[in-house]
């Protein structure tokens, strides 16, 4: 069994700073991490490895420094790491990214065996689109299972997988045929800590590195900025809210508390009382 996990190296959003003078994002010195959602995907893959002895390949598209994230994936227990890097990929949106990744997945399939499952996180914390996973699935003609909270059963012989999917209305139990692309929800598992041996071999490992030509991309207009119809129009730093929260007394009967709450609201937003009154009058008259 072969599983591929797509991971992305992202800036640690908890440590991102906006330059106080120029108002641009200060990338220098901001630590990078594996997109946290991808870790749930990786752990799920490693669990399948534990159960079925699957081999797990981590795939990442990014600058050469993204090899650090791949090395980390190896430390957790992945068997192989592939970095897809090329300056032609710079500025890729989700369309161009899913194209490049699907080409890399095709080569991975040819070199190391066709994957039964391709995992991704549900989305990244820098782009937040949740489009790349489904994009890969549709390009490669894989069944897709998105927002998965649990893998209930994997039957390799029958080539079937059963999962739980969180939906707005409740939990759906879905079954489909392999091969499949699964995007994992957050908080579905806890990432393990690799052993000494895994950590040492990860530190030593050669990261397989491919460029656009290596994965058979001939039409470079499908890559990077040129292959990306999405345009970033503007970047701005949200200004911190200056208004403060207020705690309304929780003493007394329900009516007292409700009155206190309404008084506080009216005091904060003077127009509301008149507005409500006007509407009430309008309604009843």
């Amino acid at each position, binding site marked *: 069994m072969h599983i591929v996990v797509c991971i992305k190296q992202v800036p640690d959003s908890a440590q991102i*700073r906006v330059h*106080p*003078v120029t108002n641009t994002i200060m990338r220098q*010195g901001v*630590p990078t991490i594996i997109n946290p959602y991808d870790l749930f995907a990786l752990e799920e893959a490693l669990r399948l490895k534990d159960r079925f002895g699957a081999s797990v390949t981590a795939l990442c598209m990014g600058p050469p420094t993204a090899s650090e994230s791949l090395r980390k994936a190896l*430390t957790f227990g992945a068997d192989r790491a592939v970095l897809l890097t090329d300056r032609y990929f710079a500025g890729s949106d989700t369309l161009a990214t899913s194209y490049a990744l699907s080409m890399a997945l095709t080569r991975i399939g040819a070199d190391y065996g066709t994957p039964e499952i391709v995992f991704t996180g549900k989305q990244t914390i820098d782009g937040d689109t949740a489009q790349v996973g489904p994009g890969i699935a549709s390009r490669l003609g894989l069944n897709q299972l998105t927002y998965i909270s649990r893998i209930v059963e994997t039957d390799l012989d029958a080539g079937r997988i059963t999962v739980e999917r969180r939906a707005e209305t409740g939990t759906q139990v879905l079954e489909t045929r392999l091969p499949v692309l699964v995007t994992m929800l957050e908080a579905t598992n806890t990432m393990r*800590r*690799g*052993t*000494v*041996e*895994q*950590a*040492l*071999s990860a*530190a*030593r490992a050669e990261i397989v590195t491919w460029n656009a030509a290596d994965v058979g991309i001939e039409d470079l207009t499908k890559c990077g900025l040129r292959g990306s119809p999405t345009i970033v129009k503007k970047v701005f730093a949200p200004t911190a809210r200056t208004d403060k929260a207020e705690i309304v007394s929780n003493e007394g009967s329900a009516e007292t508390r409700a009155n206190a709450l309404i008084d506080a609201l009216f005091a904060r937003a003077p127009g509301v009382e008149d507005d409500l009154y006007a509407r009430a009058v309008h309604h009843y008259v």
Partner: protein
Amino acid sequence: MANVEDKFDAIVVGAGPSGNAAAYTMAREGLNVLQIERGEYAGSKNVQGAILYADALEKIIPEFRDEAPLERHVIEQRMWTMDDTSHTGMHYRSSDFNEAKPNRYTILRAQFDKWFSSKVKEAGALVLCETTVTELVKDLTGTVIGVRTDRQGNPIYADVVVLAEGVNGLVGQRSGLREEVAADSVALAVKEMHFLPRETIEARFNLKGNEGVVIEAMGTITKGMTGTGFLYTNEESISVGIGCIVSDFAQSQVSPSELLEAFKAHPSIAPLIEGAEVKEYAAHLIPEGGYKAIPQLTGEGWIVVGDAGQFVNAVHREGSNLAMTTGRLAAETVVRLHRLGEEMSARNLKDYETRLEASFVMKDLKKYKGIPALLHRNKGTFFGAYPRLISQAMQTWFRVDGVDKKSKEQAILRNFRQTRTLRGLIGDAWSVARAWR
């Protein structure tokens, strides 16, 4: 899977300046080196003011200026003694420091250490991050033969373990090689990074280009405790911090953050950081016990470098250069023994201590061996009474108020005598002179 391949020539515990210096030096000489760091990456747990003294690094990586992330080279040193409203300063500024190869730099450790670590990797060492060495593994004779980590799995073996684990020396302690660091020989320093546009920094400190200023301050800012404050100019930020001996904090019950807030609000400091945005807050321990606090440095299969060996010259605010130098010297000893095919025995590793004795490290620490105890014993005098007396003397001297100069002189002397007595003054001078020798 712990096969023969996993026996290393040397394991270095820690990726600070001393560990990096040791790992780099050994790896460059062809040794099979494993460096283990508990932080997510080298530098992620490391905190320093920070000043980089070029000389120590130059002896390891001569061309470092071309690549290392450096902030500003220091052209001016300000030494201040402060009371609550004033400072008396001795400043030394020289354009000689605008040389092709400057002598001192301000740096940001998180960035600098990452670079240093990349050089360690380039030199061929294996660097294992997010892994904590929990204890040393010994054979039946007590010889250290490897380390155990917080990861599941077998121990990792090596001919020698270089303990570059930092001030607390936890691995050494757990392995029975050393005592816990005494609370009166370690300082707790807290610092903040204040971001300001570079033009503002340059205007406030009268700087051009990458020139930088360092302020080291002592006085009532430490509220009677043994300690110092500092302010360093970086490229687009200012590092401000203050630190005192841990046992003094315990005794005074003053909180470090309170101390830093007061220091920042001091009329001599506040205007320098006005309008800045605080982006980072950090705290760290600094070994300040000096020569007398140095633990056992070598044993069967192990060797101690950097802060773990208490190698800090508190008087001159030097530490990272001692760390790099001790790391390099330890590595040179290991490389030599390795080449000769000699054992990493306690006896053979003593060569490191001989190298230390011959270097500025031990010479300086020996020179000032009496200072830490002297300052600590008389902290009220040196960090309270004298700074106040000096400030009052300056105020009396410079204020023009119709009083004749002779009377002013007498008033100043009287103030000194009344506060310290003549015997006290002579005693203080004598003990400082003796400790300084």
